[in-house]
């Protein structure tokens, strides 16, 4: 502030007829930098201290998961322990920043783990090495032994958020379709797992074909399409409560491609009747159905904007599948995809600024993102078949499935940063498709 005033003052002097010969002092050296480097931020994470006898293994596991979470973002790089100058032997010990600076660690994460009975306590601190300060307060998580991975994810989430300023996503789950069997007779069942592929649990058996599960915004329910009745029908599965609800569909109708609204009270979906597919909305509490589109073309794959006011969907009204946005109550739609090729499965980013989609062009499939006004389309991936994007809770990462080519072709899950970097396969024990990323857990 002072400086600005001073500048103003000086400028006024200059502007005056007499350029001041008074100017004895120099202003600050002013520079502008527009090019940085893009590289992972190096961090050091000495294995967390085991504070109770026998908790060494737990401490090591937790340290590993924390490091993996960070490293797998490709925004962080772990400095191997062999490079460490000072060994952090106690959680309470003060940090000798110089030692960590010397190995170019920009962040230092220290922690301690104690186990008593079924309870695990994880503490950690995060240091900004070059500033010589602690970033945020130390934090402690208390939980059960079984939940140790979640505690590790929480630690990593906190570090990630403090360093990048972005929302967290490690402590989240993904619901997807687990597949097995030959391509001509795929067995499919719903499964749920941690974002990193750990802790897989199955929600249905494979007696009936199931497709495209979608998490509710709170992660307590899952929408999916089941052929249990012989015809595609939408089910709501309450993860916590066992209950199942079917969205009413008249005989002769097929319903599929559902998604929740942001408040979880409404579901938008495709309803196919007499060969024509349109978008409908149903209120789960009242059961009231509202038709949102009525064109002879195919309207499908609807997705709400985060504020619930708009819906992006796929339609072939122009002759080929393209993306459109309309009001949440239906009506006039505007097209937002203009490139060559066919567009499908649009999903609105939780940040609200981007829409992810599947694009098919010249025999290849891509996952891409585009701004909500249709500008700045960017393709993030390319393969024989990439499909079905879903957003991480912080809108930074997209998961999708990639199916390989040919008779032995099979799908598996991948994630990619919205920068188009860091494509990685998500390990699952069997084939996997149709991921839906749930919210950050509490």
């Amino acid at each position, binding site marked *: 502030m002072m*400086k*600005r005033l001073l*500048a103003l003052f000086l*400028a006024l002097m*200059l502007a005056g007829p007499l*350029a001041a010969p008074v100017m*004895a002092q*120099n*202003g600050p*050296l*002013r*520079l502008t930098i*527009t*090019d*940085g*480097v*893009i590289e*992972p931020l190096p961090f050091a994470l000495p294995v967390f201290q085991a*504070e109770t006898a026998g908790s060494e293994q737990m401490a090591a596991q937790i340290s590993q998961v924390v490091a993996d979470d960070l490293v797998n973002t490709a925004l962080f790089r772990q400095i191997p322990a062999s490079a460490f100058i000072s060994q952090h032997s106690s959680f*309470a010990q*003060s940090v000798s920043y110089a030692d960590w600076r010397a190995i170019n660690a920009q962040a230092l994460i220290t922690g301690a783990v104690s186990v008593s009975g*079924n309870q695990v306590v994880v*503490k950690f601190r995060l240091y900004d090495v*070059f500033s010589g300060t602690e970033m945020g*307060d*130390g934090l*402690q998580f*208390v939980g059960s032994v*079984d939940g140790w991975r*979640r*505690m590790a994810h929480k630690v990593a989430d906190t570090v990630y958020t403090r360093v990048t*300023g972005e929302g967290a996503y490690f402590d989240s789950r993904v619901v997807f379709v*687990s597949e097995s*069997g030959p391509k001509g007779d795929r067995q499919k069942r719903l499964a749920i797992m941690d974002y990193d592929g750990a802790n897989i649990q*199955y*929600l249905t*058996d494979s007696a009936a074909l199931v497709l495209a599960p979608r998490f509710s915004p709170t992660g307590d329910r899952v929408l999916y399409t089941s052929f249990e009745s012989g015809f595609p029908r939408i089910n709501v*599965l*309450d*993860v*916590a*409560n*066992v*209950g199942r609800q079917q969205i009413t569909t008249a005989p002769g109708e097929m319903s599929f491609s559902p998604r929740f609204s942001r408040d979880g009270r409404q579901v938008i979906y495709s309803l196919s009747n007499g060969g024509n597919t349109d978008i409908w909305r149903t209120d789960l509490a009242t059961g009231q159905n509202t038709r949102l589109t009525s064109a002879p073309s195919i309207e499908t794959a609807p997705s709400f904007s985060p504020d619930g006011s708009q819906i992006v969907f796929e339609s072939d009204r122009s002759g080929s599948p393209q993306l459109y946005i309309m009001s949440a109550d239906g009506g006039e739609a505007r097209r937002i995809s203009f*490139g060559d090729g066919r567009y499908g499965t649009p999903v609105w980013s939780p940040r609200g600024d981007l829409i992810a989609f599947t694009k098919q062009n010249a025999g290849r499939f891509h996952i891409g993102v585009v*701004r909500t006004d249709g500008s*700045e*389309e960017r*393709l993030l991936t390319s393969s024989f078949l990439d499909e079905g994007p879903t957003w991480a809770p912080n809108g*930074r990462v997209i998961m999708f499935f990639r199916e390989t080519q040919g008779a*032995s072709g*099979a799908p*598996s899950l991948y994630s990619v940063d*919205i920068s*188009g970097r*860091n*494509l*990685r396969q998500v390990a699952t024990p069997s*084939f996997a498709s149709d991921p839906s990323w749930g919210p950050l857990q*509490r």
Partner: protein
Amino acid sequence: MSPGQYISGVSHVALISWLLIGWGLNHEPLDFEVIEVAMVSGEEYDQLVRATTPNPLPDAPDAPAVPAIEETPTPPATEPDVAPAQDTPSPTEAPAEEAPPPAPPAPPTPPAEVQENVPDLVQPVEPPSAADLTESPRPVPRPSPRIADTPAPPPPPEAETAPEVQVEVAPDAQETPEVAEEAQEATAPQEAAPEIVTEAETPSGAVETSVRPRSRPNRPAPQPAEPETRTAEAPAPANEAPQEDAVAAALADALASAPQPTSAPAGPPMTGSEREAFRVAVNGCWNVDPGAEWARVTVTVGFDLGQDGKVVGNTVRLLSSTGGTAAQAETAYQTARRAILRCQGSGGYDLPADKYDHWKEVEITFDPTGMRLR
């Protein structure tokens, strides 16, 4: 002993004694926060799953789902609070613990740690399964803790994705994401680059940008010809402009390009190449994440340098920012600060000693918007 040395000596003594005495005292009592995490234990989870899985029968489509949901048993969230962590060891924490317990949302998190959460989560599971599923006395098979219940073990070995993926890799040239494990630096960008090139042009540039800075130092060299005359605000004016305070920027420009004749005590102004070398030294440490939201924020950071070229104490400060939220500006600032502190190395920035007055105070505008992936 010149006055300069004298001053330097005194301030060093002061600094050292501050480090020895003051710092230690100030930093010992680090703040500490205790959080309880509501964990769904494997057991509980299994109960959930067990309850769900065994009835794939087409019956039981009852609606209990909806009402039950409204009042989700939101477990005590990650609310920072409470639990005067009896067991936090470090004596240093003691004082800090006094502070945090303002704990406003008292009800949800009583000190009873996990016990609190367990019942919370269990309740929703048990009662309904008892009530709703009267027809199916299925909850029986609950023998061992968790692994047991998965309905059918995932088709394990034959389902191994590996071979399939391999096949795919062959035709698809550079699609080897899994390998990225150790060297994801190398692999991931590779994968990314070709794809982006196909459609959108710019983003791919991002990867290369990391290299660009290095070539910079050479460039100014050829053109140091136009040295002293103007205190080169010239190279950067374009970037200076977007500043929020357009007026101030304009004025600054005016100032800079003004005659500025009498810098008597300061020695000759810095040459273009000296400024450029300094700029390059800093931007080599400025780590930009083009996908981050803070990459839309331009910050101007000021700091003071000692004659040794090192940043003086805690003088790094945020002067202004444009674009983004306050939180994003803060992250942008932290990133800039890290760059400034990191690149001074152990020996300080290499600046012409005779022109100290020209660089003892520095203001750098970090503008990542050109690198941002929209």
